[in-house]
């Protein structure tokens, strides 16, 4: 009893220690928060740009419709229609014969698969991919063909039951990130009869290993067709692949047989189911819903007629009895024979693949992406009630923590591609469902490089990547930007205020970002709060182009590169990589008129001639487009 001196000292000492600890913890949390703000700002930049890009698609889709109309008006037979608008029905025996003729040379030391596939084959495949081996085209095609056969037997929406003993794992977007797929398997076990998986779309594009991801997933599908479920995502679309990297990956890895793979892939995508329904209560779909989403229609439609979001169904001509003629041009018979979904059905499926939940009530067009809707909690409530559902699990949006819950717990987003925008940008996640219990989430972040770096270094990396992309966007709109800046500088002083700079930049780039705080990071020529706008581009990346090309044309070509690539691919009937000068000129004219681009014909001719490197009247459009690019200057920064 009594206060002994030493106890008193001890208490004082531990009080001091506690205070010191709190101080340090406090300081560290503040430091972390400031880094987190910068990371989020960088992510916002990425997101804004990603969605703006998706919006461009709308324009491209309209251009295709425009092109099609043009062909319809000018050509009477279907022969002149680019193949893409008039696909020939493929005969099964054709495909199998073609594939069987492909020989796998003895020198090939990659994995050799035996069909029907067994678990051992898949393990072999995974080990090979871990060693960075490439699966031979013959096996790729066989896997795709077998996968198609299995998928064709599946309904549009697969009904499964959760069981008390076995858990179901649901993964979101993977986007070619093989590391993340392997990390999930490492943490959660390989798929099997006792370990069921649903993969909710977007297996491909953007990442470097879309092909390997697809091969692993399809192989597991072949081995465990009743325990592995693959839903279609908006990137399981052959035209999207042209824009977002998978097509390029295939052509690089499979120089000889790439075209065959692309053809078969196009079809396999259309046979992927649209969704999975668990216990009749939990709907798993890639994007989201709309106010008129109708599961009955979705279950009944012929889903394989949905080829690409960029190819909506043609509106048929209508006979006008009063005037005794068709109110549209009558399309050639071949086009009418094309199997199409009705516009209503097509909209239903696009909404499923593209929509995003938002907190605002109602349902309105998804203007960021240019496809699908934004749907509010009231829409969710109505659809869930209407179809007796408990919740919807979807993917499609990158979330910093890999998952997100909204609409009062009724909408879950799960996203499985960690470091999606850049190393350190976000975590990935998957969730596990067991019978009648709430979902459990598991997070991860792949990449050994990320782990070795400090928080500060990781944030620097994401931030720098975001600024690089912004810099690219700015430089390819330099002409328009300078025009806009000049409007705020009537006396031609070469200077405008920071806030005018911000206004003009937002207008031209059509990106809503905190331009005032971004300005000093992007433009180094600021004096006393005024931006010297003419010189402001010297720290941005440079556009590389053939000397003969004029500035306006260069910017257009760089800006629309991916769209042009798609367009050229479509015109290239025999998939040779070459188009004729005439075709190029004709297409370019159409393109300019539709996109409201004002470029003199002589410039185009000059350019086309300079690009006709073989001087044989044809243009290698891949070479053509590669000649126009944005190049980053070497900087002193490490």
């Amino acid at each position, binding site marked *: 009893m009594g206060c002994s001196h030493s106890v008193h000292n001890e208490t004082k000492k531990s009080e*001091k*220690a*506690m*205070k*010191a*600890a*709190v*101080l*340090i*913890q*406090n*300081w*560290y*949390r*503040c*430091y*972390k*928060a*400031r880094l*987190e*703000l910068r990371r*989020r*700002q960088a992510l*916002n930049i990425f997101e804004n740009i990603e969605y703006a890009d998706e919006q461009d698609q709308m324009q491209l889709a309209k251009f295709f419709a425009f092109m099609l109309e043009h062909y319809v008006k000018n050509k009477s037979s279907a022969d002149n229609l680019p193949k893409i608008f008039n696909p020939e029905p493929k005969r099964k025996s054709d495909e199998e014969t073609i594939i069987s003729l492909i020989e796998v040379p003895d020198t090939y030391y990659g994995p050799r698969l035996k069909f029907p596939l067994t678990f051992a084959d898949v393990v072999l495949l995974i080990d090979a991919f871990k060693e960075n081996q490439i699966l031979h085209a013959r096996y790729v095609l066989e896997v795709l063909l077998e996968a198609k056969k299995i998928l064709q037997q599946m309904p549009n929406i697969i009904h499964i039951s959760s069981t008390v003993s076995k858990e179901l794992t649901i993964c979101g977007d993977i986007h070619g990130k093989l590391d993340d797929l392997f990390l999930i398997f490492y943490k959660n076990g390989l798929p099997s009869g006792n370990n069921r998986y649903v993969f909710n779309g977007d297996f491909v594009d953007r990442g470097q290993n879309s092909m390997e991801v697809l091969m692993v997933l399809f192989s597991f599908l072949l081995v465990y067709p009743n325990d592995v479920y693959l839903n279609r995502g908006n990137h399981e679309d052959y035209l999207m692949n042209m824009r977002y990297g998978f097509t390029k990956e295939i052509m690089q890895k499979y120089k000889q047989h790439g075209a065959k793979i692309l053809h078969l892939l196009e079809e396999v995508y259309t046979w992927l189911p649209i969704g999975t329904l668990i216990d009749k209560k939990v709907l798993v779909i890639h994007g989201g819903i709309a106010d008129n989403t109708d599961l009955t229609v979705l279950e009944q439609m012929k889903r394989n007629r949905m080829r690409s979001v960029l190819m909506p169904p043609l509106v048929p001509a209508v006979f006008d009895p009063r005037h005794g003629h068709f109110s549209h041009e009558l399309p050639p018979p071949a086009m009418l024979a094309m199997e199409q979904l009705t516009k209503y059905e097509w909209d239903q499926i696009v909404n499923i693949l593209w929509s995003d939940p*938002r*907190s*605002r009530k109602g349902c309105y067009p998804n203007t960021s992406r240019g496809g699908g809707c934004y749907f509010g909690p009231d829409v969710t409530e109505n659809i869930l009630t209407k179809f007796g559902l408990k919740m919807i699990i979807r993917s499609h949006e990158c979330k910093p923590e890999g998952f997100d819950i909204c609409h009062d717990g009724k909408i879950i987003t799960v996203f499985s591609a960690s470091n999606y925008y850049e190393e350190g940008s976000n975590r990935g996640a998957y969730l596990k469902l067991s019978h009648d219990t709430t979902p459990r989430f598991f997070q991860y972040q792949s990449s050994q490089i990320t782990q070795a*770096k*400090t*928080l*500060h270094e990781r944030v620097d990396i994401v931030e720098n990547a975001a600024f690089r992309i912004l810099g690219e966007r700015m430089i390819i709109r330099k002409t328009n930007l300078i025009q806009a800046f000049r409007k705020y500088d009537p006396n031609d002083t070469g200077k405008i205020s920071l806030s005018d700079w911000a206004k003009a930049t937002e207008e031209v780039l059509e990106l*809503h970002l*905190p331009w*005032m*705080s971004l300005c000093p990071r992007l433009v180094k020529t600021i004096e006393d709060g005024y931006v010297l706008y003419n010189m402001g581009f010297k720290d941005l990346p440079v556009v590389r182009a053939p000397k003969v090309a004029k500035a306006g044309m260069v910017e257009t070509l760089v800006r629309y590169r991916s769209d042009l690539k798609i367009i050229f691919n479509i015109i290239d009937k025999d998939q040779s990589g070459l188009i004729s000068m005439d075709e190029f000129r004709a297409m370019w004219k159409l393109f300019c008129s539709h996109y409201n681009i004002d470029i003199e014909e002589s410039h185009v001719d000059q350019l086309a001639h300079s690009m006709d490197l073989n001087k044989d009247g044809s243009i290698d459009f891949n070479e053509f487009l590669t000649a126009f690019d944005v190049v980053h200057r070497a900087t002193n920064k490490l």
Partner: protein
Amino acid sequence: MADEKDGGEAGLLELQKKIKEAFEVFDHEANDTVDVREIGTIIRSLGCCPSEGELHDLIAEVEEEEPTGYIRLEKFLPMMVKVLSERRYRPIPEDLLLQAFEVLDSAKEGFLTKEELVKYMTEEGEPFTEEEMEEMLSAALDPETNTIQYRDYLAMMVIDEN
């Protein structure tokens, strides 16, 4: 005087703009609300250093009567303006930080062992999560000696921040 008044108003506008920009980063749907779980990050990113307990109180001030899980800008802004203009929760000056490390360094050796730091940070005060601990160690730990040379660490952090 006119000058002072203008200076005051301009200062207020600048402050509000700063707060709004930080808020907007976390306002994912552009509807002037943020998830309550992000408020701590927002407040700290504006240069304030409230403890976890103080943060709790600040959140209580701006929450709705019936908590919705969201905080609205119109409630957050005036609160934050007050906090910033009253210079509350000021960041900890370097020398105090150094002293804090020295207090924990009971052997007065100029460094902390990994075990010591982890013990203090995860068991005392307002304990770190495993993740926070790992993150601090990734920059603070000298892998060769398995110690935290806290003077060097602090010096590096100061440079990083600037």
